[in-house]
């Protein structure tokens, strides 16, 4: 009798172990908890009040996406830690499972950190002045007075790809100066990251002629992890699944681009 019982117990234990092994829980830093890195200010991506090293009731595109990822991976608890953008790209050990901080995936950065599958196309947006007919193509931008912020992808794109007839106006202090130029009609079209111009256009609806379109730059945002993180395959499959089922696009429309501007060719 005893022997049968023992065999039963052993058998049961083996089956449970096998089952647990198959459903393999994601290897997070803290078991059962997803730790997400963020940084602010990032209106539209992370909204909410920072307190100490965390953020209270965050909303926004990246906040919503990390919540959707947690749900997909069956993690019930999320902890947010502020990971300053300036400290992100180094071999330093990370305090988070992944950080979503509008980080463009680059080869140089990928030498010290691991990137997830891309979750956002970091295209350039074209914000036009009031009263200007919407340009329908990249070629149509050539004849306009363009402007950009110094040291941005947008400026590089103007100088190397569009090559406009008139010299572009370059604002070095901040994006505010560039936005003011569009509002004052000193500039016909400002080229800057599409979520930034869309947010500005939404905040001051009467001031500009709207976002005329976006230019595909083949730059993507990816989540940042420890180099060689074991969490990467889990995160990648979650991001791919959320892209496939439309969750990512729904979040983009909700927090960043509504409507999604047409792609200029």
């Amino acid at each position: 009798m005893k022997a049968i019982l023992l065999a039963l117990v052993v058998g049961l234990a083996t089956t449970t172990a096998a089952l647990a092994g198959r459903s393999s829980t994601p290897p997070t830093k803290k078991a059962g908890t997803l730790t997400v890195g963020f940084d602010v200010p990032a209106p539209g991506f992370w909204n909410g009040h920072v307190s100490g090293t965390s953020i209270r009731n965050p909303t926004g595109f990246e906040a919503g996406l990390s919540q959707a990822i947690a749900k997909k991976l069956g993690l019930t608890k999320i902890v947010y830690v502020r990971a300053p953008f300036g400290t992100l790209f180094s071999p330093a050990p990370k305090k988070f499972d992944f950080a979503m901080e509008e980080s463009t995936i680059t080869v140089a950065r990928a030498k010290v950190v691991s990137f997830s599958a891309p979750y956002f196309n970091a295209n350039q947006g074209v914000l036009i002045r009031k009263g200007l007919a919407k340009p329908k193509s990249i070629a149509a931008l050539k004849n306009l007075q363009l402007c950009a912020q110094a040291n941005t992808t947008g400026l590089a794109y103007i100088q190397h790809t569009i090559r406009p007839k008139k010299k572009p106006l370059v604002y070095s202090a901040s994006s505010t100066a560039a936005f003011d130029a569009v509002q004052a009609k000193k500039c016909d079209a400002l080229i800057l990251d599409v979520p930034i111009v869309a947010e500005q256009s939404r905040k001051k609806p009467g001031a500009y002629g709207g976002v005329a379109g976006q230019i595909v730059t083949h730059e993507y945002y990816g989540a940042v992890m420890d180099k060689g993180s074991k969490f990467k395959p889990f995160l990648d499959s979650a991001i791919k699944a959320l892209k496939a089922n439309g969750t990512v696009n729904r979040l983009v429309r909700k927090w960043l681009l509504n409507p999604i501007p047409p792609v200029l060719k």
Partner: protein
Amino acid sequence: MGKFLHAFFSPLGLRRAVPQVWDGFQTNIKMMLIAEALVLVFALLVAIVRGLPGRSAFPLRAIAVAYTDFFRGTPLILVAYVFALGLPSLRLAVISYQSLVTYGVLSLTIVYTAYVTEVYRAGIESVHPSQRMAARSLGLTYGQTMRYVILPQAIRRVVPPLLNDFIGLQKDTAIITVIGVTDALAQAGFYSNDFFSYAGYTLAAIFFVILTIPFARFTDHLIKQREQRERAQLV
């Protein structure tokens, strides 16, 4: 003028910023208290080492001099960056796994210890040599002379300049914001970004001033007290 007042001193803006800036200011207070306690102890140790007599103590003296020379001349912001970005990327046990606040406190302590060492040293040297000779001729050892004769007089004398350096340290906790510590200045920045109002910065300034004014008055009081005691006169 009206625009300026509205941007920096709008009553609504100031009131609305209080919880957020206060949240960050607690981090400043924490950093300054820990750093001040550490600086008091370490600076005294370095000052004593710098004053050690004899040829055999030369290497120790040299290290102490090199340390104070180097860190008095290095900007705090640079030291903070080196610690906060450099130490973690080495991936060494313990020292690479600290919080940003810890790296901030570490940089404040190291830089200010170098300053305060000089303050202590000035105090020690201001005690007349005859005191030391008298103590030694009474049979006190070097250590006893320092402990019971020199340091009690020296420290009492340097309390005002010491407090002055601490006021500097309190303000400089705001520099630690650059490494990403969410202090009062960072919160003021987030606030201005959310509400297009600079009242958060004004409020942070008010917090710092509120903290340093009692300190400054206390320093004045100590100076006055010493004058009365040592010169036996009413000031």
